[in-house]
C-alpha cells in the first residue's frame, strides 16, 4: 500500500505558531485565492460601485461572491507576505539565536 498520503500528512503537520505553521497558512490562503481568481470571481467586485456583474445572479449573490473575492485578495496581498516574513524571522531566530544558546 502506498505511503504517499501518510507522507503528505507528516509533511503537512506543524506546531502551532511555528514557521512551518505560518507557511502552511500562507499556502492555504494562496491556493484559495488562486481558485477564486481562476473561477472568475474578480468580475464580481463591481458590487463596489453598485453594478451587478451578472443581472441573472441578482444583487445579493453578486455582492456575496464579490465580498468573498475581496476578502481572499486582501488576505493574499496583505496577510500572506506577513506570514512568510514572520516565518522567515522565526527561522532566522531559530538558526542564529537558539542554537547559540
Amino acid at each position, binding site marked *: 500500500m502506498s505511503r504517499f498520503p501518510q507522507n503528505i500528512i507528516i509533511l503537512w503537520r506543524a*506546531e*502551532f*505558531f*511555528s514557521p512551518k*505553521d*505560518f507557511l502552511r497558512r500562507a499556502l492555504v490562503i494562496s491556493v484559495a485565492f488562486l481558485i477564486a481568481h481562476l473561477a472568475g470571481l*474578480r*468580475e*464580481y*467586485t*463591481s*458590487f*463596489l*460601485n*453598485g*453594478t*451587478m*456583474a*451578472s*443581472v441573472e445572479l441578482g444583487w445579493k449573490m453578486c455582492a456575496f461572491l464579490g465580498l468573498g473575492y475581496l476578502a481572499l*485578495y486582501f488576505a493574499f*496581498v*496583505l496577510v500572506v*507576505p*506577513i*506570514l*512568510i*516574513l*514572520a*516565518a522567515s*524571522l*522565526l527561522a532566522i*531566530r531559530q538558526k542564529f539565536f537558539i542554537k547559540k544558546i
Partner: protein
Amino acid sequence: MKSLFKRIFVGSIALIIATVIWLPCLQFVFRYKPNQFHADTGLSLKSKRLAARHLELWTEPKLLEQELGKMRASNAEWDFMGRSFLVWSLANMALREPESKATYLQTMDRIIDETLRIEQQEGIYFFLMPYAKSRPFKAQPARSHFLDGEIALMLAMRREVEEKAEYKRLLTDRINLLVERMQSSPVLAAESYPDECWMFDHAVALAAIKIADHLDGNDHSTFFREWIRIAKQKLVHPETGLLISSYTRDGTQMDGPEGSSIWMVAHCLQLIDEDFARDQYQRARKELGRTTLGFSYAREWPISWNGPADIDSGLIIPVLEISAGSSGMALIGASAFADEQFLSSLAGTLDFAAFPSSNNNRLKYCASNQVGDAALLYASVLRPLWQKVKGETKL
C-alpha cells in the same frame, strides 16, 4: 504548555515585526511614475489598453448591450455618462494621436448620433433616474441640464477636433437652450431633475459654452463672470470654501461639497476662471484627498459635511471613508492640475484596489464599470483639448 505559550508569544512578536515591515513596503509593489498613467505626449500604455476595451465595446453590439444592461439595472444615468466620457476621451486622444484621428472620430460620431437618436425617440427620461418623474420640472418644457450640457460638450469637443457641418446647428441650438434656461433663474441655475440643479452639470455646460464660443466666435464672457460671481457668493460651502454639489433653482443648498462632483467641476472651470478652478482643486485636495501607507484616495464628503453613501459615491469604506466614486474622479482633478505626486499615488491605489483585468491588451477595472472606466480613460488623456481652447501649446 510553557513552550506553547512561548511559541505564541514569539510568533506574535514575529507577526508584528513582519506587519511593520510589509505594510509600508506594499506601496512599492503598486507604484509607478505619473506618466505611466497620463503621458505628456501620445498615449500611455494604460490609456491605449483602456481605450481598446471601449472601442471594442462600440464595435461589438452584443458586448455593449451586456455592459449597458448591467449599468442600467443600477442607474440609467451611467449609460449616458459612459458615452459622454468616452467621446470626451476620444477627442483628446485624436489630438494626441493625429494618425488615429479618423478611427476616433468615427466612434465619436457613432456614439453622438446614437445618443441623439435615443434622446429623440425615448425622451429625456430614458437617461434619467426614475425619480425624475416624481414631480414636474419647474421650468417648462421639461429638459435636463445634465443631458443638454453633456451632449453640448460632446458636440463641441467633436467639432474642436474637426469641424462637422451638421453638428454646428445642433451645438448652437443646445448652447442657446443652456444659456436661456440658466438665465431664467436668479442664480443662473437650470434643473437636471425637478427643482434639482447640479454643480457638475453646470460646470460641464459652462465648458461646452466656452468651447462653442471658441469655435463660432461668440463671446459669453460676461455670462461666465456673472456665474462665477454668483457661485462664489451663494453656492459655496462656508466651512470648506468648496462649491456645493446640488441646489434648488432659487439657489437653496441641497447637498454640500461632494467628491464625485468637485474634481470634475474644478477641471471644467479651468476653461472659465483658471484661478478659481485651481483654488477649488486645492481645497478639494485638502478636504477630500487622503494618503495612507502611500496609497491615495478621496473621501466623498468633507469632515464638516455629514452626507450619505449614494449612487454617485459608490460604496464608502468605513473608518478611512474611502469613496470609490470620488477616488476615481480625483484622478481627473490630479491629471487636470498636473498634481503628479497625488496622481501617481491614486493610480497606484487603482491598481491595488480596483482589480485591473487585462485580456488581449484590453484593460478594464473589475471594481469599476463602463462609465467608471471611461472616466478613468478621460483622466489618462485629458489636457490637449483644453489647451487648444485656451490657445496654449498643443500636444
